[in-house]
């Protein structure tokens, strides 16, 4: 081993630059794996801790005595058993945390029941059991989770391995001739391989610790970066975040990363050594190929670029395996880059549209949706359960249900909001049969009306308000099915009316009704009295539900663009749009006097005054009857979460691009180094540097062109397969991301190919320039 280690050390010292580059490659590769492993252990750690925080037990036995609880805590595998007194004051709930795997949980619990005569139901915290691998089942689930993670990691492992591999290849390429000489003077193949593996050991001794530290540093950076985006706050409040969200650096994961790194280096070194010894020594020394290859006389490149194209094309065909490998590596990288970034981009767009949202007319959602009370005297209480399963009970309005206008005016005047749009919505149907068409009836204010039609109003709002008529809105096909006769449309509409009734009158009125019918027809407060928020008793009233035929005059129709959505689905909804002043003045009487309030959609006048606006709403209970939908905050949080996800995904994409670039640089520069003598010979024959660079440009173009074509075809194939899969699985609803257009990844492939071309060019020109520093005679002899 002495001779091998001596040479390995000497080579490392002699090729310091290569050694540093290889250590860098190992460090980066290990750092990336450490980062991925740390991300995984952090995410799973946080989920595990959150599961423990919510349910601090593996198993919760509902009812045990104090003595049984003590007995349980002395059992095998029990880490802790915390007893909490039950409301009956006699029994306890035992929260059990195991400290090791118990095998089959059911068997364990049955044994416990038999041994300690515990007859009790129990609850299992499945999530925690899985994360802690407490049972056989939990361990299996955890193994599946880890397996899936490692399948994901394998892709990176292979890509990163290539990085180390090519780093070794480059460093060994320059010494290939020396290995040939060593063999010619008697070094056995094993000894040559040992020199390489010894070098690998020395390099990994430096690269793995550096990579591990770098990976932890990178993880800390990413962790703080993700925290800074506020994504954690979308899942936890501040207190929980402090308690649960922290970086989990798992020693086992670090060990796994180090072991992976070690094997990478070992196999790369071993593989390179094996490649070196494959060729006969004299072939390596003289750089002579053992076979003579027939070359094509004509090629596209020779037509395009003349003799440089011909040379480039022949060079590629001379070593078809190497050419194919380079194109293959680039194709895989381009395809990965384009497909991953396209899928991520498409997902982001989908999430943006889905979660940031648009209303039913496709317009952007508002910042706030404020439920404004029907009138300030109505009150909302959640103290009593509503017989009709509403979340609150409502006082009958002593006035008309149109006092919302005061609330709207107050919202307008407070100065925090703008673009106030609101509507009173009702539902009607064309007849009482099963084939009835349902129509949404909207009384909208002017702002809402203008937004809805985007300036293409079929009837001006003023005319609509003055005439009391309606505009029928919908797509062509469903509109044609609505029975409009003589510009009128009759709809059956639900009405809700209150009446002052005594308990006796109410009972007489509903005595022949079943319980369900009574509930359906209306409600009467329970026998127990109800009080308002000031503690005053609410007068009982009867709330009668019914339906009525109402005839609407149609002032015009608006046919919505008949465009299918991305899955070919059409929206078939029909809307009847009327002016809100008509409701306030007269129409409300047709529908009855019951209304909870209206939803006022509005935007923040000034984003900087968000907190003040929220405070205003919180301190205005007289204005609001239910929970305010703070879409602004939700949207900000979603955007923040999306930004965090985007950062992560972009990082991943950048990582793929970086690995691909490093691999390409290594492959191409090795190719150039391989032909050191040949380039020198060409120059000796009169080739200028410019011509040599041109030859290199054509060669790089050749690589990237073939790879771009292959990657484009692959991406199209992937999209086609995905589309077929989605159709096959009927995953074409609005809740799944839309399929991607073929042009999207193809464009990305060509853009990435252009970048790859520049990278390969750089990778070719740099070693070429370095070679120029040596005298031609030295290059042609390839001595050192």
């Amino acid at each position, binding site marked *: 081993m002495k001779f091998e280690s001596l040479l390995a050390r*000497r080579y490392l010292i002699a090729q310091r630059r290569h050694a540093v580059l290889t250590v860098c490659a190992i460090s980066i590769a290990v750092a990336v794996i450490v980062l991925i492993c740390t991300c995984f252990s952090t995410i799973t750690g946080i989920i595990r801790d959150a599961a423990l925080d919510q349910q601090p037990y593996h198993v919760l036995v509902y009812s045990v005595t104090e003595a049984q609880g003590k007995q349980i805590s002395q059992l095998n595998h029990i880490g802790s058993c915390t007893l909490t007194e039950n409301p009956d004051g006699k029994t306890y709930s035992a929260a059990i945390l195991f400290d090791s795997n118990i095998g089959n949980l059911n068997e364990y619990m049955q044994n416990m029941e038999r041994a300690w005569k515990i007859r009790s139901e129990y609850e299992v915290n499945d999530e925690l059991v899985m994360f802690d691998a407490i049972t056989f089942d939990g361990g299996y689930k955890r193994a599946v989770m880890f397996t899936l993670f490692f399948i994901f990691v394998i892709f990176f492992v292979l890509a990163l391995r290539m990085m180390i591999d090519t780093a070794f290849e480059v460093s060994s390429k320059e010494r290939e001739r*020396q290995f040939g000489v*060593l063999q*010619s003077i008697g070094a*056995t*193949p*094993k000894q040559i391989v040992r020199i390489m593996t010894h070098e690998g050991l020395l390099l990994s001794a430096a690269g793995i610790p550096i990579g591990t530290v770098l990976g932890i540093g990178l993880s800390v950076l990413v962790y703080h970066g993700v925290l800074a985006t506020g994504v954690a706050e979308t899942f936890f409040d501040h207190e929980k975040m402090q308690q649960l969200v922290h970086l989990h650096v798992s020693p086992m994961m670090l060990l796994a990363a180090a072991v992976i790194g070690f094997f990478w280096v070992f196999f790369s070194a071993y593989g390179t050594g094996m490649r070196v*010894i494959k060729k006969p020594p004299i072939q390596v020394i003289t750089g002579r190929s*053992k076979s*003579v290859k027939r070359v094509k006389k004509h090629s596209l490149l020779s037509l395009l670029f003349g003799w440089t194209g011909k040379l480039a094309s022949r060079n590629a065909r001379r070593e078809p395996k190497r050419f194919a490998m380079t194109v293959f590596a680039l194709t895989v990288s381009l395809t990965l880059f384009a497909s991953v970034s396209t899928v991520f981009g498409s997902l982001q767009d989908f999430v943006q549209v889905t979660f940031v949202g648009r209303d039913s007319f496709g317009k952007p959602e508002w910042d706030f949706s404020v439920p404004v009370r029907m009138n300030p005297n109505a009150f909302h209480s959640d103290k009593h359960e509503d017989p009709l399963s509403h979340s609150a009970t409502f006082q009958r309005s002593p006035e008309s249900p149109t006092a919302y206008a005061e609330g709207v005016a107050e919202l307008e005047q407070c100065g925090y909001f703008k673009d106030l749009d609101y509507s009173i919505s009702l539902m009607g149907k064309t007849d009482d049969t099963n084939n009835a068409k349902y129509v949404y009836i909207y009384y909208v204010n002017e702002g809402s009306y203008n937004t809805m039609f985007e300036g293409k109003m079929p009837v001006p709002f003023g005319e609509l308000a003055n005439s009391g008529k309606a505009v029928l809105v919908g797509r062509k096909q469903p509109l044609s099915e609505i029975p409009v006769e003589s510009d009128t449309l009759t709809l059956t509409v639900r009405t809700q009316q209150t009446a002052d009734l005594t308990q006796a009158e109410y009972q007489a009125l509903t005595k022949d009704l079943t319980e369900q019918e009574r509930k359906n027809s209306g409600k009467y407060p329970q026998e127990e009295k109800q009080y308002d928020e000031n503690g005053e008793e609410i007068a009982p009233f009867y709330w009668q539900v019914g339906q009525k035929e109402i005839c609407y005059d149609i002032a015009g129709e608006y046919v919505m663009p008949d465009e299918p959505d991305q899955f070919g689905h059409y929206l078939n909804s029909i809307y009847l749009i009327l002016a809100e002043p008509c409701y306030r003045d007269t129409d409300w009487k047709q529908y009855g006097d019951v209304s909870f309030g209206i939803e006022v959609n509005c935007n923040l006048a000034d984003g900087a005054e968000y907190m003040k606006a929220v405070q205003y709403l919180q301190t205005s209970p007289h204005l609001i009857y239910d929970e305010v939908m703070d879409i602004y905050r939700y949207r900000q949080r979603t955007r923040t979460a999306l930004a965090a996800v985007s950062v992560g995904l972009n990082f991943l994409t950048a990582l793929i691009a970086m690995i691909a670039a490093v691999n390409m640089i290594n492959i191409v520069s090795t190719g150039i180094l391989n032909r050191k003598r040949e380039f020198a010979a060409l120059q000796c024959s009169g080739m200028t540097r410019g011509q040599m660079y041109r030859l290199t440009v054509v060669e790089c173009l050749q690589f990237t062109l073939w790879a771009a074509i292959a990657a484009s075809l692959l991406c199209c194939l992937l999209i086609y397969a995905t589309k077929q899969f989605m159709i096959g699985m009927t995953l074409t609803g609005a809740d799944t991301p839309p399929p991607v257009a073929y042009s999207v990844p193809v464009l990305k492939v060509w853009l990435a190919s252009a970048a790859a071309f520049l990278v390969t060019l750089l990778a070719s020109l740099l070693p070429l320039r370095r070679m120029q520093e040596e005298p031609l005679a030295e290059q042609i002899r390839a001595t050192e």
Partner: protein
Amino acid sequence: MEFLQIEHLSKIYGKGDTAVHALNDISFTVPRGQMCAVIGPSGSGKSTLLHILGGVDKPTSGKVWLDGQDVYAQSAKRLAIFRRRQVGLIYQFYNLIPVLNAEENITLPLIMDGRKPDRDELLKMLDLLGLIERRRHLPSQLSGGQQQRVSIGRALFSSPAVILADEPTGNLDSQNSAEIIALLRKSNREFEQTMLIITHDENIALQCDRILALADGKIVSDSMTGV
């Protein structure tokens, strides 16, 4: 059986109509201790012959027997050990290991063989080569003649049975050339080493015991010089 025996040796590069016959069914023998010059025009197969004899290239067909042993019937490992112990190869462009100094380059075959070089022998060899002062120098710090002497030292130090030299003076001036050939001759006489030297220099060829002339992969003349 002669010490070195070559039977119907052929080496073909490529296949079909692109095939190149570097060696075309040649047979000859070399007795122990003979110093043989191999001459011929470029592309006649001299270097190929030497490399096949040295076990660094494989013949397409034919056999090479050295001291009764079929060279190419051995495993890769045995072949490497054969090269290490039985053959000393000297190249025109020295082919030294650039990260090892002169002394280390010379002793390398012994070290690879797990043997400890004898210090006195080494100093004697360095003295013979005129490299005592330069023994700690790396190849890049030596002149062409000195590098070739290191290369010869490496070939001779393990006392192999055969020395194969591929134009050992091709890259040197006349004074250095004369010194190198004198050195080889001395070693040949002292240790009864069999030597095959490829050369284009008629004077060098005439200093050898025998001259083999090759053309188009065939032996076209085989004569003794009477030295």
